[in-house]
């Protein structure tokens, strides 16, 4: 039978003051299977620990109960003691919390002592049903995958690569960079966005530890922290990147010239074989199969003829590769809300001069379609009156989203400032709900915009219609309580950030959660802001929620440092207190699979001999790398086939009954 040792700590007078420790020890000695009892002045002290180890070894104990302070305090310490100084499995330990939850909250030994005895009895009962558990070290594949190559992904990739680990940077567009290169200037310092972003892009491209995969998407993720097997589909580019020199000859000769440019937000055109913008990385051309005549109709082949490098390959196919990574950083960024669909009162896209903020960025950019001159799209005239509307889609649960997109207040101020700078005689009205400028130098910047002459009106624009070549913006100035109507030449909508298309699929693929608005959910909003509930998967940038560039870059660094920490260690210590499936009881109903927040459970086919017959049936299986040991599945499992090691049904039942019967 088991041989249980009970060690009762006096903790100086912390415990002994209100608990009669000798009486507890005496009572413990009569408990089932208790063969050794001792008391200690300070159990956690070195001599205290040594005496426990000695007692365990001399008396051949196999289960240990320590009645002392909270297990949250010293459980790890005592487990370590058992592991290092005795032959007892460190999980054959239970701690009766007779300090925080007994001696410190009771004043009288007459009350504290019997309670301490009951707590010890419960711990003795539980420890007797404990089984040996073993941690294993799972080696970590020392490579990282970064999904999304906007500024967040690039930064994370660079940080990880600088730490010496190979990184694969996956981007579904033809170039890395994301949204940042589209921006003209960045607030509040007004430095050129492309000037600070493109060097990062080049650095990533040139980094020996970084492999960039553009036009690529993650199709499947299997495995768990330290060992994710990731399948990536790299779409056909129809251009051999090894041969392409990026000379641009093909682009010049391509007959398909009327394709709206994504990079310029539809304000200019591109060709079917193209590079989205001059500084694109990789600096190679790609054929857009949806528009290429050769690929759609089978006749053309101009680019192939002009390409001196012979890089054009119309027979190119998708390449699917599976590789193993230790950590994953998800940095899939954002999209702007499709305002045209939800704001018919703003023309719903009918008026070419109602543009989004990102289109405005392209308009004021020196390398944009207007070479930096503010010319409105419809007639290429300089608008003399511009209305900027904030919170289009944001903070508007009826039409758009309920949250604040955080960057638009500054972005709107920047646009007003840029417009007034370029058109000194222009008038700029900004309709706003609130002005939120918390950030270093942000409020100062807003003040400067006001000084520049921007007119801020508190209220939403209720309608935009065209009259006499003007866009009439009707709104309410709630401060003066008047209906305001502005005849504008151009309207800029500062639209909400929303999760990009495909975020839901990616969440399922990588197995991370999304909040109600669709942003990926961090493991803890305060304490684990870049981790996810899936160990080894980290979040960077706006994938986690709207934020501006400084926050994005900071978070990317944080995510990278978490990934680096994991990769540096080289192994993960598996938590043995996880769910265990008794396949004899499992009927494969999948209730556990449905509720596991970590995707640690799956249904698999099992073949076994049962009653002299070979039977194949479906049972649940636990992925030890993913399970975090919450135990929610053990309750969902009606027959109790799923049980939590360390907090098993039997152990808890022992505690319950021991207390109930006493």
């Amino acid at each position, binding site marked *: 039978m088991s041989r249980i040792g009970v060690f009762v700590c006096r903790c100086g007078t912390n415990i002994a003051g209100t608990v009669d420790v000798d009486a507890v020890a005496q009572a413990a000695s*009569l*408990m*089932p299977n208790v*063969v050794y009892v001792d008391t200690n002045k300070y159990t956690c002290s070195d001599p205290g620990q040594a005496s426990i180890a000695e007692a365990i070894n001399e008396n051949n104990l196999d289960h240990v109960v320590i009645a002392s302070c909270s297990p949250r305090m010293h459980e790890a310490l005592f487990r370590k003691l058992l592991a290092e100084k005795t032959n007892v499995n460190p999980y054959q330990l239970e701690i009766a919390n007779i300090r925080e939850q007994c001696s410190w909250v009771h004043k009288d030994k007459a009350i504290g002592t019997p309670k301490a005895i009951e707590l010890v009895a419960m711990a003795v009962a539980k420890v007797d049903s404990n089984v040996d558990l073993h941690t294993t070290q799972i080696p970590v594949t020392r490579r990282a995958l970064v999904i999304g190559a906007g500024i967040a992904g690039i930064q994370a990739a660079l940080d990880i690569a600088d730490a010496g680990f190979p990184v694969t940077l996956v981007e579904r567009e033809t170039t890395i960079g994301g949204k940042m290169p589209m921006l003209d200037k960045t607030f509040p310092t007004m430095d050129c966005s492309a000037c600070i972003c493109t060097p990062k892009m080049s650095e990533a491209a040139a980094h020996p530890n970084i492999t960039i995969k553009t036009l690529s998407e993650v199709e499947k993720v299997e495995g768990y922290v330290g060992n994710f097997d990731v399948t990536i589909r790299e779409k056909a580019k129809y251009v051999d990147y090894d041969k392409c020199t990026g000379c641009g000859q093909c682009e010049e000769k391509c007959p398909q010239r009327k394709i709206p440019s994504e990079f310029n937000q539809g304000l200019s055109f591109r060709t079917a074989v193209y590079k989205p913008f001059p500084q694109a990385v990789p600096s190679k051309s790609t054929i857009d199969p949806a528009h290429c005549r050769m690929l759609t109709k089978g006749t053309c082949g101009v680019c192939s003829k002009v390409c001196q490098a012979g890089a054009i390959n119309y027979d190119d196919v998708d390449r699917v590769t599976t590789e193993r990574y230790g950590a994953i950083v998800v940095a899939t960024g954002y999209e702007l809300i499709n305002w045209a669909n939800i704001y018919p009162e703003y023309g719903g896209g009918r008026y070419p001069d109602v543009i989004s903020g990102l289109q405005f960025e392209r308009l004021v950019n020196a390398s944009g379609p207007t070479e930096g001159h503010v010319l409105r799209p419809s007639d290429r005239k300089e608008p003399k009156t511009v209305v900027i509307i904030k919170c289009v889609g944001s903070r508007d649960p009826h039409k758009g989203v309920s949250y604040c997109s955080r960057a638009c207040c500054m972005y709107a101020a920047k646009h007003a400032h840029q417009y007034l700078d370029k058109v000194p005689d222009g008038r700029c009205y900004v309709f706003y709900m609130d002005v939120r400028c918390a950030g270093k130098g942000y409020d100062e910047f807003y003040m400067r915009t006001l000084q520049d002459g921007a007119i801020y009106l508190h209220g939403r624009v209720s309608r935009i219609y065209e009259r006499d070549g003007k866009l009439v913006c009707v709104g309410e100035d709630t401060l003066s309580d008047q209906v305001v109507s502005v005849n504008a030449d151009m309207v800029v909508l500062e639209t909400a950030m929303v999760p990009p298309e495909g975020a839901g699929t990616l969440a399922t693929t990588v197995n991370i959660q999304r909040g109600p608005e669709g942003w990926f959910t961090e493991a803890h909003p305060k304490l684990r802001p870049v981790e996810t509930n899936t160990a080894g998967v980290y979040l960077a940038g706006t994938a986690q929620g709207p934020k501006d560039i400084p926050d994005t870059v900071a978070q990317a660094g944080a995510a990278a440092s978490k990934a680096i920490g994991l990769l540096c260690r080289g192994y993960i210590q598996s938590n043995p207190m996880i769910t265990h499936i008794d396949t*004899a009881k499992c009927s494969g109903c999948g209730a556990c699979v449905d509720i596991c927040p970590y995707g640690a459970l799956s249904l698999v086919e099992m073949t076994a001999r*049962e*009653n*002299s017959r070979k039977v194949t049936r479906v049972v649940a299986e636990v992925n030890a790398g993913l399970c975090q040991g919450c135990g929610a599945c053990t309750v969902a499992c009606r027959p109790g086939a799923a049980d939590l090691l360390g907090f098993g049904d039997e152990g808890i039942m022992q505690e319950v*009954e*021991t207390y109930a*019967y*006493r």
Partner: protein
Amino acid sequence: MIISKDNMGALADAIGATQTVYVPGTERAATRFVAHKKGEPVVLGGANVRMPPKDLLFPATEKMYRWKKHEGQLSLETEAAAHEPFTVLGVRPCDMASVAKLDLVFLTKGFVDEFYQARRDAATFVAVTCVDPDGDCFCEAMGVRLDAAPAADVLLVDRGGAYEAKPQTEKGEAAVAAWAEALGAGADAAAGDAVEAHCTLNPAAAKAEERLRAEDFDNVWHSVADYCLTCGTCTFECPTCYCFDISQDVRADEGARFRCWDSCMFTQYTLMAGNHNPRADRASRVRQRFMHKLRYFADRYGEGLCVGCGRCIRDCPAGVDIAAIIDAVATAPEHELTEAARTVQADEAKKEAAHV
């Protein structure tokens, strides 16, 4: 001694003065033998009680011994087997026959079950002839007479408005003498002729037993298993099912081991450590139940285990009908012989050859 049917309450009161007397009544959602309360009327006719008197001799849960550990020392304490005397009034011939079968199980073949014996010794059974078998009763086919109950201490013969009490054992003699004393002369006059009755259902049990000894009826068991729920209703309501499990109630350092009814219909019944179960499928459990009732028990004790009380037919939620099964077996087209039967035949042939 003749006792008017109206006087049954008084009789129960009289017996109840010195010991517990169990009479047909309703308790816990079923008709069963309940402890008689003084002054309440007692009616012995009509439909038989749904729960047989089995639990009076063999309770559903019965403590066997207690154990205790004190300072690491294990000690055992047996439960007293002795039992206060009691009387069961109004047992039908079928149920009385079942008591005789339980006696075979618990009191013969080597070991005597002390707990059963104590209750059996304490019991006085007063049987009553059966005048109202219903459409599911088939006791006559199982060798039970409606007008006799040999295992009873006293038999009450239904004579219209009154019962004639016939003592059949020493205990019965004493009981009837005591009743006569308690009820006065007891010369209730209104006794007519003994009422005669017979079952309308008469499955061919003898033929079935004979064929079960020689042939496999797997198709029958499988077709029954196609609708049997394998719940415990039939076995718990059966007056002769006696299977039990031994389990325990543990409270910290002490506990009691008890036995409780079990059912061969349950999967767990034969489940062994390591999850092997020789009777994992329903058909094999159905087979076991009916083979045990109709043949195995006879192999061991010389008589079948079914008394034809019809309870399992009446209350089966799935419509399993032992009478129909008996007939199905008896009238089935000829089957292949079982391996065991073939062995027996071969042996006999060998012996004959040797003889010649």
